[in-house]
């Protein structure tokens, strides 16, 4: 307890309640943008890039940009709709299996001699249907998405096996596979990044600038409240799962053409990498919190660290420790900071309102 003599004068209001002058206000305006969670993520990304450019030989080159981006594109793509899904408090574990199923369908149709355009359209439609199955079970039937998508994770991967078995199809049109690894001039940026940026912008605008997107945050905080203010909960969730299915199919198409190989086990295990990146990007697993810029920065951060360490001859397999530690640190740190600021808040209340401790008003 602090000495009452040293207590600062507390302004008394008409109704007898007191105001704490020293209580920090929430950030507003530019401070909010520049000191927020997303900004910290972007600073971390810049710092890591600068350190890598200085410390790792051969990192600062267009070759790096190219391979780094080619590597992160599947995770980057799927992380976009996944962000929206997790913000509504749901999860989709079946994304990698949908990508695998798409890849298998592509391989079989191409081998059967269909035109490549038709092959691509049918493959992506398969993803739309797969996403709709998830969405139907979660949004319409009302089952928990964690359980449903564990089931469809097995189901879609199983269907991929049914479709293509243990074959691999590799003879895709060379001009198409070459396009998927080509670069934009001398910048080293892969040409397909144009499409990826379109996807990022689409989901960024959808989430942050449309009533539908803002409604998703409300939905993540409280489904009941969201329903009362007129958000169509079931329809929103159904569309989000269709979204993850569609984008996962695009990622499957990319995976197939980039490695020029259609196999049933393509992209397996990718779901956990995507979710790790999304959570690192500041999206709350409880829903209601998160943003697209933060997630993009997180995906790139993991990509840069992995690429730099690999260049620095750190063994590939050990790198997953980095992903794991980053993920845990990113969720434990806010909790620790939260505890510290609560402790400071409590101490301030005790110091400035010594009488409150006896009346029990500060216990809240």
């Amino acid at each position, binding site marked *: 307890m602090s000495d009452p003599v040293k207590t600062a004068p507390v302004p008394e209001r008409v109704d007898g309640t007191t105001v704490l002058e020293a209580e920090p206000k929430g950030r507003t305006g530019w401070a909010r943008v520049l000191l927020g969670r997303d900004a910290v993520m972007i600073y971390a990304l810049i710092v890591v890039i600068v350190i890598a450019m200085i410390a790792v030989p051969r990192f600062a080159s267009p070759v790096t940009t190219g391979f780094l981006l080619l590597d992160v594109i599947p995770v980057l793509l799927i992380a976009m709709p996944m962000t929206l899904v997790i913000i509504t408090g749901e*999860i989709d*574990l079946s994304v990698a299996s949908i990508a695998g199923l798409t890849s298998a369908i592509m391989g079989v149709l191409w081998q059967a001699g269909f035109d490549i355009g038709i092959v691509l359209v049918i493959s992506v439609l398969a993803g739309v249907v797969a996403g709709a199955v998830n969405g139907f*079970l979660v949004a319409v*039937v*009302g*089952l*928990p998405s*964690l*359980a*449903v998508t*564990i*089931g*469809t*994770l*097995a*189901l*879609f*991967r*199983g*269907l991929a*096996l*049914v479709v293509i*078995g*243990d074959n691999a199809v590799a003879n895709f049109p060379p001009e198409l596979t070459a396009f998927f690894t080509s670069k934009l001039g001398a910048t080293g940026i892969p040409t397909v990044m144009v499409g990826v940026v379109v996807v990022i912008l689409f989901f960024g605008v959808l989430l942050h600038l449309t009533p539908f997107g803002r409604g998703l945050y409300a939905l993540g905080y409280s489904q009941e409240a969201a329903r009362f203010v007129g958000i169509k909960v079931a329809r929103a969730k159904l569309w989000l799962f269709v979204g993850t299915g569609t984008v996962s199919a695009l990622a499957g198409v990319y995976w197939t053409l980039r490695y020029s190989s259609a196999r049933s086990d393509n992209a*397996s*295990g990718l779901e*956990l990498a995507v*979710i*790790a990146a999304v*959570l690192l990007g500041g999206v709350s*697993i*409880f829903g209601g919190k998160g943003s697209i810029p933060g997630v993009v920065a997180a995906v790139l951060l993991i990509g840069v660290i992995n690429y730099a360490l690999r260049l620095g001859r750190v*063994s590939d*397999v*050990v*790198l*997953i*420790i*980095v*992903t*794991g*530690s980053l*993920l*845990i640190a990113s*969720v*434990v740190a806010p*909790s*620790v900071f939260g505890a510290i600021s609560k402790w400071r808040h409590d101490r301030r209340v005790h110091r400035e309102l010594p009488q409150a401790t006896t009346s029990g008003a500060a216990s809240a």
Partner: protein
Amino acid sequence: MTTTETRPPSAAQPEAKRNSPLSAVLRARELPVALALVILVTVTAIANPLFLSPQGVKDLLLNATIIVILAVGQAIVIITRNVDLSVGSILGLVAFMTGSLFANVEGIPIPVVFLAGLALGAVLGAINGLLVTLAKVPALVITLGTLYIYRGVNNAWAGGTQYFAGDRPDAFGALSVDTFLGFPVITLLALVVVVVVGVFLAGARSGRDLYAIGSDPEAARVFGLPVGRRVFLAFVTNGLLAGLAGVLYASRFNSVGATTGSGMELDVVAAAVVGGVAIFGGSGSVFGAAIGAILLTTITSALTALRVDKFWQQAIVGVLILAAIIIDRIASVRTARKLRISEARDV
């Protein structure tokens, strides 16, 4: 400690008296999955008598053993409304340590290896439990992180090294070959685990606490249950069982290395869910989880025995998981409706 807590006498449920033992059996969440298992085994045995030959049964049991132990541990954690995705990595790490102990320490006694495996599993589980209870971060996120970290440690330690059956004493490998009363020894161990944990969860006060915590963590806290300590112990127990499974894995399978047990976590969660353990906690039993695990492993063998194309197996497992969730949903909706009607009648 918990013994000082007082509970209102009304905690005993009056409506429980009205139900006969038979209807309790019929309403059990384990019933659909147990029936499915019986039907599956019967149909397969009729179509292919070799399926239930002594060797066939032994193979079925051996295949189920490890996943049963993991599913029991996972069920404890899921009942408290948490989840542990790191079990595959814990199993891998312990299995590799087992192989490495036998290969590098001359004449190490088998019980010592078991104890070391259990201890390592418990420590890894305790790390999960500490992070979840102290940092108050959802278990899904924490254990996804430790999934990667434990696997990374395993990779760093093992590198390209693998230990094979030749590196371990014959008596250790014999655990999963020898039978006692027709059961393989490691299966009997799993059975003991299921019964002990099952009785504990059904009868012991701290076991019942887990259900209360899973049904409503806030209410459990207000009621005075030591929520943090119970959840922590659930994770430690799960780690311990994953450690046991890791040691048995090294006995059962020919080689252990950097990737042992990877990807197992979702199978384990699926087994628990198929066995009627609700993914949002508060209901289900380890018996159900064990039967779910046996069903999932048996279906693979049954499809082979029925000469179903092996490529269909995983898709069928997926359909089975979805069916289990839907059946569970229908059952809980019906229970809720019945409760509403009986409550309305009492008023």
